[in-house]
Structures are given as structure tokens and as C-alpha cells.
């Protein structure tokens, strides 16, 4: 036994429904037995210990928990983990490679696009979804795409600059 105390149930509760799911998270298949009421954000944070996905408001307002679900941004506090069975999820941990930051992360660094950093993971994934669809966005496009993500520090100015910086860099790299 690896721990000094392990609580065991006297009898298994047959009323608790459990589902086995396999979700591709940041390119790697992860399997788990979960209760269907588990939210995707909690699976990522508590189950898979990917705490880069932040929970801010927990009421579908702030966008801090944004992840990419099959490439499109979703608020992971407003989706059941069981719904991700067989799908691809990308979190902020999946942006950088071991040797290099993603251009969006670099942009946030260069343009000082964060202060406390709490909203940043959601901002970066929403920005990634935008740039995949529209590699050459205007400032308005960026503001529009990030309008579901709240930041209480920056006043958004530098976040918008960071995304535009990343867009420039990604376009330059793709030529």
C-alpha cells in the first residue's frame, strides 16, 4: 500500500454511473473512468493535472477556461468531459514545444500582453483559433474574436497588440 490511509467504500454504489472515455489531449490519448457530470475543465485540471486551463467565473462568462475542441475554442467549464470522448482537446500546455514558444506566446511576451496572467491561457487559445481561420486579422477582428474572454488587468490594449504581433510572425514564417 502506497499511502498510510486509503478510504474504501464498503459497497460499490451502483447508482453512480461511470463512463470510460479516451480523449486526445495535446496529441496524446488519455483514458479515464469518469462520472458524466464531470466538467471538461475539471477533468483537465484535477484529473490530468493540466492546471494551465484556468477556471475564472465558472459561469460561461470569462473565457479563462477556453480550450480548443477539435480546433475550435470552447469554454471547458461549460462542456461535459464525457462529450470529449474520441475528440481532440488542446490546452495551453500544448502550445509550446520543448525548445520553442508558440508565436502567440512569444507575442504576449514581446508586447507585454499579460499582467496577472489569469486570463492568458484562454486568450491565447481563442487567438490561435482566430489566426487559424484568419491569418491576417485587423485590430477589429482580434477584438471581436476575443470578446468572449475577459481580462481585468490590461485594458486589452496589449493583448490585441500581442495577437497582431503573432499574426505577423506566423505569416512571415509561413512564406
Amino acid at each position, binding site marked *: 500500500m502506497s499511502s498510510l490511509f486509503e478510504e474504501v467504500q464498503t459497497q460499490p454504489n451502483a*447508482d*453512480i*454511473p461511470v*463512463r470510460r472515455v479516451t480523449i486526445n489531449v495535446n496529441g496524446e490519448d488519455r483514458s479515464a473512468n469518469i*462520472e*458524466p*457530470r464531470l*466538467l471538461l475543465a475539471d477533468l483537465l485540471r484535477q484529473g490530468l493535472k493540466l492546471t494551465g486551463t484556468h477556471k475564472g467565473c*465558472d*459561469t*460561461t*462568462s470569462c*473565457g479563462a477556461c*477556453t480550450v480548443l*475542441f477539435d480546433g*475550435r*475554442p*470552447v*469554454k471547458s*467549464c*461549460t*462542456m*461535459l468531459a*464525457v*462529450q470529449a470522448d474520441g475528440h481532440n482537446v488542446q490546452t495551453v500546455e500544448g502550445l509550446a514545444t520543448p525548445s520553442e514558444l508558440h508565436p502567440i506566446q512569444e507575442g504576449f511576451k514581446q508586447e507585454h500582453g499579460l499582467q496577472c496572467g489569469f486570463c492568458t491561457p484562454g486568450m491565447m487559445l*481563442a487567438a490561435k*483559433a482566430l489566426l487559424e481561420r484568419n491569418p491576417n486579422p485587423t485590430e477589429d477582428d482580434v477584438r*471581436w*474574436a*476575443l*470578446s*468572449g*474572454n475577459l481580462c481585468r488587468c490590461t485594458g486589452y490594449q496589449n493583448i490585441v497588440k500581442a495577437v497582431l504581433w503573432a499574426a505577423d510572425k506566423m505569416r512571415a514564417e509561413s512564406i
Partner: protein
Amino acid sequence: MYPSRFKYESPKSIEEAIALLDAAKGDAKILAGGQSLVPMLKLRFAFPEQLVDINNIPGLNHITFDADGTLHIGALVRHEELEFSKEIAAKQPTIAAAAPLVADPIVRTRGTFVGSVCHADPQGDWAATMIALGGHVVVQGPKGKRTIEMKDFVLGPYANALNYNEIAIEAVIPAPKGVARGGYLKLERRVGDFATASVAVALDMDGNRVLRAGMALAGVGGKTIDANEEASYLVGKELTEATISHVADLVAAKAEPKTDHRGSSEYKRQIVRTFVKRILLAQSTQKAA
């Protein structure tokens, strides 16, 4: 926040989903986009014994125009699919105008048009749009399909006309008589907030002459306000400053706004009047297609 405990099923066909709903005898909820249902589960306003997730049922994500111009929107069409559809932009201006104003961009990737209509929130953008467009909902149950006119579909706040064993499988917008024109305007304090007031206008036009006019309001009453009768004043008339001003007064009088932290009732009524005028003026200056 955790929802209360429920069983989860993800059927692969509509028939299978209906059988599950039928067996649950009213203790099941349908999960489509989940952008209203999941928050309600988390707040425990809703605590169904079972969720029937329809996301894995094929054939429900169509946006199609029939040859005559009738528009079909499947139960799994997300808001953003309408927002980015070139066909919608070209042929259905009221929906094209409303789509980018629904909730926020991230909610729009998941939330569905039909789910929003079924949710029957008095603030809902799509219920107002459907009323203005004279749409109907096609529902399927154990005994087959039936059609419910939008004006009969919403029974009250968060209450729709579906039986417990029925699924809304698509929304249908009838073909325009002439050229489809219209718009949607919403005043909100910030993106994603409930509307202070919003106005849906749908016109069928022949040049500058109105063949059919539909209007509906959200955010200015305990339910979606059906102002189609007031809008019908325009039928057979040209859009002029005088007719626009008159119908804007009629529609504004139909609103039932309440004073709250979003504004006074007079203010909200004035917003409705202004929005009706703005949308109609924009149509009257457009060249005939």
C-alpha cells in the same frame, strides 16, 4: 460547481434518442450545444435524471436552401456556422445580422440555433428572429414528425411546446415572397450580457415596396414580443420616412419593458423605436437586387 448526478446517453440515431426520452417519461433532457443547459445544471436549476446527448447523431447539421428559397436549419447547426455561412449572408439578412450578436464568439462555437429556440429564453435572439421570419419547428416523436409554428412553440419563459418524448430536429424559414431583406440590432452593456433591447426585422420586398413584414423584440418583456401585427402596417407600402416612423411608433408601443439596472422602461422603448427605424432606413436605401 458540479451538476447533480445524472445518467448520460449518446445515441447514434434520432429513433434511438426518442426511445430513450420516451422511456425516461419526462426525467430526461436533450443536450445539444449545452451552452444554456450546462450552466443550468451547474446552478442546479435543472437536475434531470438523464441527459440524452444528440451530438453524435448524423444528419442534423445542415443549413440548406430549397429551390424555392425555404431555409432548413438542423438541430446541431452552431451559431458560428450561421455567422460564417456565405449562403446565409447572401440570402437571409435577418439571420446573418443576428448570428454575430448571439452570446460571445466562444459560446457561438458550441451553442445551437435550434437549442436556443427550444430553450425559450425571453431574451433569446433566435426566438425573436424566428417569430419575425414566420418560421416553424419540425419535431419528431414516437409517432413521427409534426410541425409547430414558432408563434405556438414558446409557451412561456423557458417552456416550449415539445412533448417529453419529442426532439426538435430542424427549424424552417419559409421562402421569401420577393427579395428577403431585414436586420437585427441588439443593445447590450457588454458582449455576452443579456440584451437591454433587441429588434428583429424581416421583410420580403419588391423594389422599395413591402410584400411581407415581420418584427419581434427581445429583452423588453417577460417573453419574446411578437410585433408581426404592427409590422404588417408596412405591407403594400413603400419604405418612406413617414411609413418607417409610423411603424416604429407602433412597434415601440407593443414593447413591455421594465425599468431595471439596464435602463428605464422609457429608455428601452426608445431603443426599440430607434432600432426599427435604423434597420428600415438601411433597407430603403439599398438598391433592389
